[in-house]
């Protein structure tokens, strides 16, 4: 979408242009505390109700209370709208409403804005009594002028003061009015949504907010000359909208998990916030332990005593839990661990996305500790995966690690409302007496599976131990037992793998030049990029892996249908051609490493750690470059 640029000039004569677009990204940015997020959330909800695909992400400054008018302090929200389902946060922003030029500058500096972005900017700073502020404004304008943005100055403060005394508390609704006109949103629906959003506040608040909305709307109507139409779709059925962490919390409830043990860590914590709010009414206990080790221990103790439980964390916390994970594998106690990945290593980038814990999750436990690793790819899957993970953990008597990430955790998008089933819930712990002669690890030699004994079951008394043990749970170091028990714990995984289906191919299942392989939250962006590349005529397809350990079957055969296979991941890999980097010493992306080892196919990788989700446009570029015989 190319938009003409009128610079910062006032609009003289109005000549309307209306663009019908299938996809557009909008931002509202401000100092924190000015309500930009509320404005965006309401705008997003109304758009979803009008049948648009929506993906919103909050723009969060690193500090809790950053100084005002500071590029690093830009706080706000980004909303991507589409005429179809929107599966990722998209590329650059096309329209931005900014409450001050410094917040805008912050977005500009991060290359967040499209070259032809339309900017609606509060202009009170241009004539501010403080000369320092006026100077900042001028400098900012000068820097912004190097791009071909179209900046439209809006007297937001002045306008808002006609309705409220403190414009700081009302600008967001005025901005909502601007967007409502700009995108031709249903004004009545927007009013309803405002009333809903402020239902717990005094009625005067809603009244004023609606006045401000109308004011923004009519200001836009009088002064703006551009409008966008994003056609909506017929809703296939009822939809719900939430972020991935809320989906995990509700998914845990749906799965019948009754105890969650955790220690706060970004970006996983909001799962516990949600559970803290709702879990007790389901009879569920959210236990905030003294540290991550204890959280794992409590979850394992509770699982051992009855129903499977789970623990939620992020990378650094998972590191602390490794010894306990090994114990759960060794003693065959079911456990679900959710790792909402963030940037690493060490404290890294707590609020930003990365997919760098795959190897640690799969191989990070000292000793041989085979277990299941799986990853949701969408917000809806964050909900569904919990039931499946719990069921697998119980069926296999082992650990299931679920790898989500900051992208899913903070992205908000609608998905079809799940049709809930009581069958998803775990039954109460088996308390039947154990028949004489049964053993606590009565491994079926074919499958390695055995029946779990739970305290309370008469006749099942035994001491489980993290030491090497035999079928009766007796400590045993003899070669035969050690080899056999390891085999049994590993065979379960092979049995499980035999029940998995090969992944589906997006694009051409027959094969082609390039196959992109992804996992986790990048699915939407990858498939969008592949779709665009195919439109360009490139012979490229993609596949997305849900099960990372054990890997889904058929990969080698699928890879064989393509001339080249390349993973796309948000983790670090060396780039061949960089100083000292050769094809031999190159460090690959994490999934690429696993696939190379498992399939002996020469899988390439394109991975980046940019502190943000991958943009489909960038993946598209990478596809073009990495086509066999292409530029790279």
């Amino acid at each position, binding site marked *: 979408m190319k938009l003409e640029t009128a610079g910062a000039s006032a609009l003289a004569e109005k000549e309307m242009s209306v663009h019908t677009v299938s996809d557009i990204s909008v931002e509202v940015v401000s100092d924190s505390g000015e309500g930009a997020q509320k404005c965006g959330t309401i705008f997003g909800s109304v758009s*979803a109700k009008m049948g648009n695909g929506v993906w919103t992400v909050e723009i969060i400054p690193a500090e809790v209370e950053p100084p005002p008018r500071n590029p690093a302090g830009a706080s706000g929200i980004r909303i991507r709208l589409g005429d179809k389902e929107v599966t990722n946060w998209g590329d650059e922003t096309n329209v931005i409403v900014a409450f001050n030029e410094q917040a805008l500058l912050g977005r500009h500096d991060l290359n967040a804005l499209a070259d032809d972005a339309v900017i609606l900017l509060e202009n009170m700073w241009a004539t501010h009594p403080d000369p320092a502020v006026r100077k900042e404004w001028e400098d900012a304008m000068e820097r912004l002028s190097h791009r071909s943005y179209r900046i439209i100055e809006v007297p937001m403060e002045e306008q808002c003061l006609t309705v409220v005394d403190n414009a700081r508390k009302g600008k967001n609704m005025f901005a909502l009015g601007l967007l409502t006109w700009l995108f031709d949103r249903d004004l009545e629906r927007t009013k309803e949504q405002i009333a809903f959003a402020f239902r717990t506040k005094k009625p005067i608040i809603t009244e004023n907010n609606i006045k401000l909305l109308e004011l923004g709307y009519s200001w836009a109507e009088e002064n703006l000359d551009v409008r966008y139409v994003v056609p909506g779709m017929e*809703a296939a059925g*009822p939809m*719900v909208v*939430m972020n991935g962490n*809320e989906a995990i919390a*509700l998914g845990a*409830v*749906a799965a*019948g998990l*009754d*105890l969650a*043990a955790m220690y706060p860590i970004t970006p996983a914590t909001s799962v516990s916030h949600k559970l803290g709010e709702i879990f007790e*009414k*389901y*009879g569920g*206990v959210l*236990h905030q*332990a*003294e*540290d991550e080790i*204890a*959280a*794992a*221990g*409590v979850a*394992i*103790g*509770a*699982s*051992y*005593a*009855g*129903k499977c439980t789970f623990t939620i964390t992020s990378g650094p916390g998972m590191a602390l839990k490794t*010894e*306990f994970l090994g*114990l759960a594998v060794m003693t065959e106690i079911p456990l679900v661990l959710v790792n909402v990945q963030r940037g690493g290593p060490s404290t890294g980038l707590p609020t930003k996305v990365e997919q760098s814990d795959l190897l640690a999750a799969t191989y990070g436990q000292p000793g041989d500790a085979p277990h299941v690793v799986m990853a949701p790819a969408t917000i809806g899957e964050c909900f569904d995966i919990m039931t499946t993970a719990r069921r697998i953990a119980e069926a296999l008597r082992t650990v299931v690690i679920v790898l989500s990430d900051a992208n899913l955790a903070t992205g908000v998008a609608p998905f079809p*409302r*799940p049709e*809930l*089933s*009581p*069958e998803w*819930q775990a039954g*109460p*712990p088996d*308390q*039947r*007496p154990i028949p004489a002669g049964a053993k606590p690890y009565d491994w079926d030699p074919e499958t390695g599976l055995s029946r779990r004994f739970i*305290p*309370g079951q*008469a*006749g*099942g*008394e*035994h*001491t*489980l131990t*993290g030491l090497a043990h035999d079928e009766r749970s007796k*400590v045993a170091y003899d070669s035969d037992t050690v080899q056999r028990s390891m085999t049994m714990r590993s065979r379960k995984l092979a049995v499980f793998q035999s029940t998995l289906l090969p992944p589906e191919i997006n694009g051409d299942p027959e094969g082609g030049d390039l196959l992109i392989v992804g996992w986790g939250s990048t699915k939407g962006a990858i498939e969008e990029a592949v779709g665009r590349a195919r439109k360009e005529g490139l012979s490229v397809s993609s596949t997305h892996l849900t099960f990372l350990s054990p890997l889904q079957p058929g990969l080698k055969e699928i890879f064989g249908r393509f001339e080249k296979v390349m993973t796309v991941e948000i983790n670090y890999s060396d780039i061949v051609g960089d100083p000292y980097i050769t094809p031999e010493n190159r460090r690959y992306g994490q999934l690429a490493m696993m696939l190379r080892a498992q399939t002996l196919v020469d899988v390439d990788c394109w991975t980046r750690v940019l502190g943000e989700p991958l943009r489909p446009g960038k993946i598209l570029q990478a596809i073009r470059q990495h086509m066999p015989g292409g530029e790279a």
Partner: protein
Amino acid sequence: MIMPSCSLLHLADEDDDRVFEMGDYEGPIARWCSGCGDHSVLTAAQRLMADKQLKPETTVFVSGIGCSSRFPHYMNTYGFHGIHGRALPVATGVKLSRPELDVFAVMGDGDCVSIGAGHWIHATRYNLDMVALLLDNNIYGLTKKQTSPTTPRGYKSNTQPRGSYLLPMNPLEATLGVTNASFVAQTAEWIPAHLFATLKAAYEHRGFAFVRVLQRCPHFMPDLFTDAVKTPDMIEILDHPEGIRAAGIEKIYKNTTRHDPADLNRARELAEDMSAIRLGLFFRDESRPRYEETRALQKRTAREKMDLLNEDFDRYAV
């Protein structure tokens, strides 16, 4: 109080006429060194179970790693021999999800006072209804004689062959300093009557009962308690009608001090003063909030949960 957390189904099949003898709680022969103090703690625990007629299937012994942590293997109950230092988190999970089970945590001094120190402090604060036994031999036994946090200053070990550098940590003093501590006692494994009376009081206590058991390790600390064993007067028994009274020991252990276990300040003073080895109940307060009660919730059926979940989804409806 026994409140079934699950179904009533299993109640039905239970053989209620069972009468348990001590032998019913015995597992395989314990493989500690001969003369190891752990043996008598094991016997006392089995005697306690017979005394209280605890059911083997609803009793769980959780331990960490160490000589002492082998304990559950030698009991004929459910046992959880986990990882070093982490007995208490596991025990917390067991009790939290199944409050009707009887839970015992058995730890060594390395286990509890060193690697698991954080958990020890917090478990004291949670105050779940369980018995926590610290089998304190002032040394790392299993790993062959390394200094522990309770090793006497100057004692030579394999890691500190010129004698330990630091003052030993005092576990009683530390526990008594933790908010919400509700039961703190000390006993010695070589006085079986006192040991048993202490375990019994700990079991009867409603809350987190922390018991430090002075334990001989003839293998690595042969001299540690020899004087105390030979000279009963080195031991001072805390006596009070509300405290722990072991019948029959008064003839040998004449050195007693009256101490009301409700008196926390005095308990702290007595614990801090190392001039005598004091055995008995330092402190007890049953009124302190217990975590499993604070967190007790009405259980929901699958259908009820799904109805509630539907309501929660309503709030996210587009």
